[in-house]
Structures are given as C-alpha cells and as structure tokens.
C-alpha cells in the first residue's frame, strides 16, 4: 500500500451496519492453533444446530464509546434524583406505609435475580461462538449489574427508615417464598446457553417482562415513590434493548435449522409456565399491596399477555411455533391466583419478611368490581371472616408450614381452575421417592428433567430436616433468615413501621 492512496481518497461514508460490523464482527478470527470447540465448548450439547453465526442480525448496534456516553448520562440523572430523594426524606411522600412492603418484595425477590441475570449473560457472553450475539449478551450482562446496583441504591433510603429491607442479601438464598424467583433463575442459569437465552431473553424479558416491570414501576409512580419510579424510567431504555435481543435470538434459532423448532417450542412452553407461576407474586402485589392501584392483575394479563403476546405468537406461527402450552389455563387463572396467594401470605404473615394485612373496605369493593366472576363468590367471604376474627382480637396465623411444589416451589395454594374450592394437587414417583406439584405444567417440567428437579432445595423440607437451624420456626426466622422477628414480620397493624409512620406524620 502506498501513501498516495490515503491522500487522494475522500473518506467513504459507512452505514451504521457496515461500521458496526467492522468494529465488532470483524474482531473474530478462525482458529489455527486450538480447536475452536474447546474455546466455545457449550454450543452443541442441547441439540441446537447453529449452521452459520454470520446470519445473526445485530438487534442494536451500540459501540462501547456510545454505550459509555449514553449510560453515563442516564446514571448522572438517576443519582441526582436519588440524592434529592434522600435529602428531602422522599420516603415520607409515599401514599401509605403499606406501599413500602411492595418494594421490600422487590428488593428481596427481584433485585437478586437481576444479579443472576447479570451472571447468566456473562456466562453466555463468554460462551457463544458468534461475536455479534456474544457482545449483545455482554452488554445485557453489564446492564443487569446496573439494575441490581441502582435498585439497591434506590432502596437504600427506605432501608434507613423501614424494616424488612436490611437482610436482603442473606434472605435471597434462604427464605421460603424467595426460593420461587431464586430457583427460577437457578434453573435458567444451570441450563445450556441457548435455553438460558430462550428462558430469560425471550420468555421472560420479551414475553413477560411488561408484567413484572410495568406493575412495579407504575405502582411506584402511583404511590409517590420517586426513587423507584426514577430507576424504572432509567432502566426502560436498557429493557428495550434486552427485548430486541430476546426476539432476535428466537428468530435466529428458528431460522438456523428446522430441528431447532421443537426444542425451542419445548423451552417456550416450560418458561412460559414457570414465568406465569413466578408472576403470581406480582399479581398479588398489584391487587393487594399497592394502596393506590394501577390496574388489576387480570387487566394486566389481558393487556400485556393476551393482546401483546397473542400478536407475537401469531407472528411466530410462520416458523411453526404455537402458543405456549397451558396459555388457555392461565386465562382462567388470572381470576384467582392473586387472591389465593395473598391469602397464603396473610395466613403465614408471621413467617414473612414483609407485613401483611386485610384489605380495607374500599379495597375489597375494588376487588369485587375488578373480579366480578370470582371475588365475591370465593374470596370476599374469607376476608370478611378475617375481619371478624381481627375485630375479636384473634388475628389468624396458620401454624403449619406449607407444602411446596417441587418445580415452582410455590406453596400448594392454587386450586383446580374449574373448582376453586379444591386445591390442585399432582404427584409422581421417581426413583422410589414421591414428588408433589401444584399443576400439570409443573409436573410436565419435572418429568422432562427429573434428575434436575430432584435436586431442588425446597425451603420447607430443609427446615423440617433441620438444615435451617431451629428447633422452632421462630429461630429459623431470626437465626437463619436474619429477620428482626416482631419487626419485619406480622401484621401491618401494630408494626414498628406503622408506629414510626404515625409519629412522622403526627397522627395518633
């Protein structure tokens, strides 16, 4: 090459796609000295066939310099607001101190999963042989780290003034109801790299994320929590990138080889079911834990899954992908699960790291209005009974520990959807041991990989086996879970949270 070429040529204008390709895709090379399969050893064991990584369409074309620039601007704004929130005691502006329990559930139940998402994306961000997909996963990995850290910072102020936040790190891998989200992410991370991406990138981030993120963040907005809602807005543009990655991976896998279609369908079925089970906690939060309601769980399901998801699966039909198995059952479940879950938490409120309560009369009326088919018939009478008992000074706590589903790890609280008075109960025997399930969906998942799910660390089994200290539940709560017993748990009424709030507000 000679110098003249440089001097005479006007710089060619590169398209974004060409430029991104040169700056990213072209970094990879064909190995000569090692077997490439030893460097990227996990691509084949799931049976997925990748014939040509170069067919990967980068869902967003962000170079690192632009990433640093945009993300730093977002962080600057976010932390300015978090600082202002702390300086002005923003926690005093929430609608009602009961609201704070929703974000206790978020910090203990969701934030640790953001960290697991960060770890899972780091894993596949190392393992994928295709450089385009790999780098998109690396960016999601660092975004997810951002999310856990900004959530911890946003809630740090609440931790200073309310109970139930302080032990989130210890609680994440121990507490009975937190094993629901924790095992969900363990399941995805322990799977192969393509199942992980279908589970988290597609089924969770693309299909179901609006049912997790929007309810919590809108809940924060409706209830005066500026710290959390600011985090939510700030994270939204990251989420948009994650969703396009989730969709791209599905299309890529389906286009690479027809043999991938049944594998992907199986994963969609599995993760849709596991995802909806996990979202029970969100449904409960929306219907019962937000003093100012955003919308009912049922409405959210209709808007974000039945309409949006319906259109998506219509679009995927050309690849031979059908609606997830049990989607029809979930249409029935939307009428029931939030009520069944909050009742379970209410009655186990002594073992729960946030406060529970009976809905106010206005809230009961709202539930009756939102669930005309089911609430008055099946659930309102329970709350009327609980109100009566409470008025008599006999607030009810069940003494028994709940039996858990081996797969989703939710207590066996769901009913048959055609008979809401009958608890749904499935079981199977594997290698001489009996395993219990809340549903056909969870039983199917177990049957497909029993050797995986027999490993489940079921919190109630572990307590009963003496692996969580004891001897009583109280010691498990204080010594193993690190609850401040008497402050973090029990009813909202009479809690230190409530007393302090009244002092701050100057009401008796």
């Amino acid at each position, binding site marked *: *090459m000679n*110098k003249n070429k*440089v*001097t005479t*040529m006007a*710089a*060619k*204008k*590169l398209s974004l796609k060409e430029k991104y390709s*040169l*700056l*990213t895709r*072209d*970094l990879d090379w064909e190995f*000569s*000295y*090692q077997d490439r399969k030893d*460097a990227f050893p996990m691509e084949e064991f799931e049976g997925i066939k990748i014939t040509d990584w170069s067919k990967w369409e980068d869902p967003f074309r962000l*170079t*690192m*310099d632009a*990433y*640093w*620039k945009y*993300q*730093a*601007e977002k*962080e600057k704004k976010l932390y300015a607001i978090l600082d202002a929130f702390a300086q002005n*005691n923003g926690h*005093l502006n929430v609608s009602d101190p009961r609201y704070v329990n929703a974000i206790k559930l978020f910090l203990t139940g969701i934030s640790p999963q953001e*960290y697991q998402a960060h*770890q899972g994306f*780091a894993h596949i961000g*190392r393992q994928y042989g295709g450089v385009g997909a790999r*780098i998109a996963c*690396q960016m999601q*990995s*660092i975004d997810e780290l951002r999310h856990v*850290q900004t959530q*911890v*910072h946003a809630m*740090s102020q609440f931790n*200073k003034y*309310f*109970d139930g936040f302080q032990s989130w*790190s*210890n609680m994440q*891998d*121990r507490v009975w109801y937190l*094993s629901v989200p924790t*095992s969900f992410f*363990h399941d995805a*991370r*322990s*799977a*192969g790299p393509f199942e992980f991406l279908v589970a988290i990138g597609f089924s969770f981030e693309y299909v179901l994320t609006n049912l997790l993120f929007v309810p919590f963040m809108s809940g924060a907005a409706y209830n005066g929590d500026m710290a959390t809602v600011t985090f939510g807005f700030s994270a939204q543009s990251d989420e948009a990138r994650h969703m396009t990655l989730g969709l791209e991976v599905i299309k890529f896998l389906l286009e690479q080889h027809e043999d991938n279609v049944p594998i992907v369908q199986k994963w969609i079925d599995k993760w849709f079911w596991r995802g909806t089970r996990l979202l029970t906690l969100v449904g409960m939060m929306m219907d019962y834990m937000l003093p100012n309601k955003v919308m009912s769980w049922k409405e959210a399901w209709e808007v974000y899954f039945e309409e949006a998801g319906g259109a998506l699966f219509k679009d995927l039909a050309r690849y031979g992908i059908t609606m997830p198995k049990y989607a029809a059952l979930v249409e029935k479940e939307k009428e029931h699960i939030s009520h069944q879950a909050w009742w379970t938490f209410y009655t186990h409120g002594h073992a729960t790291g946030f406060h529970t309560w009976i809905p106010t009369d206005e809230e009961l009326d709202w539930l009756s209005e939102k669930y005309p088919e089911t609430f008055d018939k099946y659930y309102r009478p329970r709350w009327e009974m609980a109100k009566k008992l409470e008025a008599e000074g006999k607030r009810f706590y069940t003494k028994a520990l709940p039996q858990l589903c081996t797969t989703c790890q939710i207590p066996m609280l769901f009913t048959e959807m055609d008979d809401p008075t009958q608890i749904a109960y499935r079981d199977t025997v594997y290698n001489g041991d009996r395993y219990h399930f809340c549903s056909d969906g969870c039983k199917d998942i177990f049957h497909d990989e029993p050797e995986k*799910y027999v490993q489940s*660390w079921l919190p109630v089994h572990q307590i009963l086996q003496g692996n969580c200290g004891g001897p009583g539940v109280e010691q498990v709560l204080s010594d193993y879970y690190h609850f401040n017993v008497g402050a973090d748990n029990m009813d909202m009424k009479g809690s230190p949270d409530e007393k302090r709030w009244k002092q*701050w507000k*100057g009401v008796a």
Partner: protein
Amino acid sequence: MSIQIKTSTLEPVRNTFAHIERRFGDKPATRYQEATYDVQAETNFHYRPLWDPQHELNDPNRTALKMADWYAFKDPRQFYYGTYVQQRARMQENAESNYAFFEKRGLAERLPAEVRDLVVRFLIPLRHLEQAANLNNMYGTAYGYGTAITQALLYNAMDRLGIAQYLSRIGLILDGNSSDALQEAKGYWMNDAVWQPLRALCEETLVQKDWFELFLAQDLVIDTLMFNLFYVQLDEKLVADDGQDIAMLTEFMQEWNKDTSRWLEAVLKIAVSESEENKTLMTEWISKWRGKAAEAFAPLAIEMLGEDALTIALAELDKRVAKAGIK
C-alpha cells in the same frame, strides 16, 4: 403539611443494610459498599449446572486460589456501574475530540508512509488480541467468585471491547473507511510469521479453565508486555519517525492502562498476601505464562523494535510482579 420542618430532625432507624453493617460497622455506607459487598448469592443452589456438574452455580472452587473472604478484593477505584460508566464517558469524550481533530485536520494524510505501514502492521492487529482479552475477562466475570472482583473483571472486559473498537477506528481513519487497512492488518494477524506465536498464545488462553490463572496470564503477563511493547516502545518509535500524531489516537489506551493498573496491582497484592499457598501458586502461574508470553512476543518485538525491546518489556513485568510481593 409541615414535612420540611420534620425532615430536619428525622432520625434513621439504621444506617445501612445488615451485611454492610457486619463488615464496616453501624455507620452510613458508601455506594460502592452497598453495590458490591455480599451481592452475589453464596448458598443453597438448587441445581448443578448441566454444563459443569462438578461445581455449584456460584462456586469458589473454579480456581485453585483460596481466599477466606473473596470480598477482600476491594477495587481502589471503587467502581460500581455508575462510577465506572461516568469515568469511561469522560475518557471517551476526550478520545472523541482527539479523533475528530485528527480527522478534521487530515492528519492521516500527513503521516509518512513508513509510519502508516508500522501502524497497520503492528498496532491495528492488536484489536484481535483485545478481543481475546475481552473474552478472558468475561471468563472471570462468569466463573469468578464475589462481586468485588467479578464486577471489576466485567468492566475490564468491556474496556477491552472498547479498545478493540478504537483500534479498528484507527484503521478506518487510515484507509478512508474502505476497510482495506483493517483487512491488511487482519492478514498480518492470520498469516504474518511474526504474529503467529502471539495469536497461538491468545488461542491458548481461550481454552484455559482456572479463571484466576487466566486473569494472571491475560491481565498481568500478556497485558504488561503488550502495553510496554506497543504503547510505550512502539509509541516512542512512531514519535521518532515523525508519527507523533498517532499518540492522539491511543491516548485512551494510555489512560486506561493507568487506571486499570491501580486495580490490577491491588488485586495481586491482596491475593499474594493472603497465604503462602497463594504465593506459591501465583509464582508458578506467573512463571509459566511469562515463559510462554516471552516466546510468543519475541519475533514480533524483534521485527517491530529490535533485539532489546522484549528484555525491556520483561523487566517491566518483573518489576510489577516484585512490587506485588511475589518472588
């Protein structure tokens, strides 16, 4: 409402989270502390990974190095995501104005042909080494233990992708966006005899299993030699050959090295002072990779800079190792 009056006297119930209080006492915590310590889960993993059934999902035994507390690896820069991206955004702003200046003034056209050839043959192929460094730091992020070190490895992984992209942009500036320079440089990386031992070494790092050993191989041994040879000695040669303008395009790497060295040297010191066993292990690993890297860089260093260059770079590495208390 009289909120403003009350807020001035509102006493917090606690200063920070319980796990932070256990480590640092009952006092207000920094954002670095709350974003870092004990964030990663440590127990009760539900399922063994299908892809590594010998280990738990988060498992300290993916390296032979032992630490009583993996959170001893405090980052002296105190980088959590927010501070990291803001610091890098400042660096990229500076880089952006350098690149813009370089292009606006048409400085590529003023480069002597020999300088251009030096850059294309020796500097730009490094973008592939940077990609290996990206993967190797991702490896530590994914399989390392404790947020203190894994988050720093992730920041370094992303830095390396960024550097690979800056190097690629130098190529595009030199070839007027035709990508000819990038293709030519890739040709050297793939086929030029002096590059092959280094490419073989990069490929070898990509099949390593022990993440801390890999961290030493990449971030200590290879990177120390690479930085000295290319960004110190080659830089001097370019200046001598009337190519000092290139330094505008590599200022980011200079700043990055300064910043990352603080962290790297802290990690080395902490790991080695933990125990005699760690010291022995690290001494073995470093000596093994020093040997491999010295061989791999040798033909390139001679071709690019002459006989003494590698000796100088190795002395730099040995100095750094000694400073950490190894040997």
